[in-house]
């Protein structure tokens, strides 16, 4: 499990424009108590909380942090969760796997609209329970049409599937040419070597351009400070994954980086009782996903937009 990400000290094309900006702001604001030279040294006042807030402020972009800075950032995330939720979580930085590009396929003729995947995803990924963030929408659509506009994802009948309907779960498609990444003015979101489009929640400025750019309604904004009942927090977290988020940042499905980069299935696949969801490595010719892509008639949503999603649909 070795990472093949670019070395951390590789120069970044737009190196530090946001950081410089914020740093100058910060320096201006606190100039009376701290000179430029000590701006990055955390003052040891008021315990962890103040020191952490200070260090958070100067935290660099994920791709530019040194291993030491990253370790400190992870520790701060753990402490923050402890303060906010009273829960001990573990936050890791799991690198992408070599020779792996993830893909997903979903069998529409098997999906029965149970919403188990939604439930599994919420339990796994620590979205705020009151902030209406759910990465997966299961659309109920009239059979014989592909009318996404006329779909309903609030359906709640006594039993599903309802006659005359089919169900189409939609989540982040992990586009190979992701418009959200292009639209981000601060490069807080990017495509990893394993094809997953990730977000550095600490770098996100909450402008929501990416939400407007996404053709799949896959990105969600934390309008409120996300609250999770402490008993429901998943303590196994990843920096570019399911760690607790703050108010004012966007988030979305990340193919459960905390699980899949360790060889496990994503939570939605595990939760689905019908076997409609097939996940795997697109580069492995013996993988299930390759069998599906090679033997079934697959299609992608809004393929004509040319974003090249890595999420396919098929029927048997």
């Amino acid at each position, binding site marked *: 499990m070795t990472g093949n990400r670019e070395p951390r000290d590789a120069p970044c094309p737009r190196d530090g424009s946001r950081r410089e900006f914020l740093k100058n702001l910060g320096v201006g604001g606190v100039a009376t108590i701290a000179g430029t030279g000590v701006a990055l040294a955390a003052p040891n006042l008021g315990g962890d909380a103040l020191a952490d807030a200070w260090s958070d402020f100067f935290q660099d972009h994920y791709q530019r942090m040194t291993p030491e800075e990253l370790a400190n950032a992870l520790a701060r995330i753990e402490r923050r969760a402890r303060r906010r939720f009273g829960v001990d979580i573990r936050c890791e930085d799991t690198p992408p796997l070599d020779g792996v590009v993830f893909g997903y396929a979903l069998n529409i003729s098997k999906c029965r609209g149970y919403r188990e995947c939604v439930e599994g995803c919420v339990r796994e990924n620590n979205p705020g329970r009151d902030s209406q963030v759910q990465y997966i929408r299961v659309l*109920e659509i009239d059979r014989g049409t592909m009318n996404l506009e*006329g779909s309903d994802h609030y359906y709640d009948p006594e039993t599903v599937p309802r006659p005359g309907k089919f169900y189409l779960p939609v989540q982040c498609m992990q586009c190979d040419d992701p418009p959200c990444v292009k639209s981000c003015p601060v490069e807080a979101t990017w495509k990893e070597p394993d094809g997953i489009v990730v977000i550095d929640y600490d770098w996100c400025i909450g402008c929501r351009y990416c939400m407007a750019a996404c053709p799949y309604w896959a990105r969600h904004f934390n309008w409120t400070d996300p609250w999770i009942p402490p008993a429901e927090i998943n303590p196994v977290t990843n920096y570019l994954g399911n760690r607790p988020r703050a108010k004012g940042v966007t988030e979305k499905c990340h193919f459960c980086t905390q699980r899949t980069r360790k060889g496990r299935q994503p939570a939605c696949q595990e939760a689905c009782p019908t076997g409609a969801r097939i996940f795997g*490595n697109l580069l492995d010719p013996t993988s299930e996903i390759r069998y599906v892509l090679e033997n079934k008639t697959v299609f992608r949503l809004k393929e004509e937009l040319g974003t090249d999603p890595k999420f396919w649909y098929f029927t048997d």
Partner: protein
Amino acid sequence: MWRLVLLSVFALPFQILWSPVAAVEQNGPPSPARTSAAQPPPFTVVARQDNLLFYPCGRCHEFMPEHPLLVAATRPPPPHPESLNHGGDRLWCQTCHSLDDADHLRTLRGTPVPFDRAYLVCGQCHANRERDWLFGGHGKRVANWRGTRELYLCTNCHDPHDPTIKPRKPRKPPPLRADLGPVAATPKGPIMIWDERVSP
């Protein structure tokens, strides 16, 4: 040490019975589709046999005469299925069970098949599904996407005596955004909030 030897001697015929190649041969000449395609990647299954309520079946069936008429007379106790809702009236119990050897399923040719390899029985009539299942296009892989490939058996999801999957209650719908009602879907598309405001 002698235990190990004994064990491997006992395990040998078992291994032969359980290897996929042997199974295919037992099912008669392999169909062209099977030989021309690539072999499915190796897999294990989530065992069910030991959890069957009545297993081992021989406990009773060894001592019972095989007599179809008896079925009508004595109703088998649960969990014997009360009825068979599979394939119209084309199947009966002994399509898949053998009463001489109730501890195994049987193929149509009479080859015994352990309960944990039920897919060999199902695959006789649902060959496409079985093929998809073997390669990962039907059914579900447990836990991981690489490493040991563990699959759920057909019987995990389909009751062989009533294989249609029944409708059920969905999980609760997503919460509504504050101040916004659910968007009602109409054939023309959803009614948006601005439609409501402009139309009288």
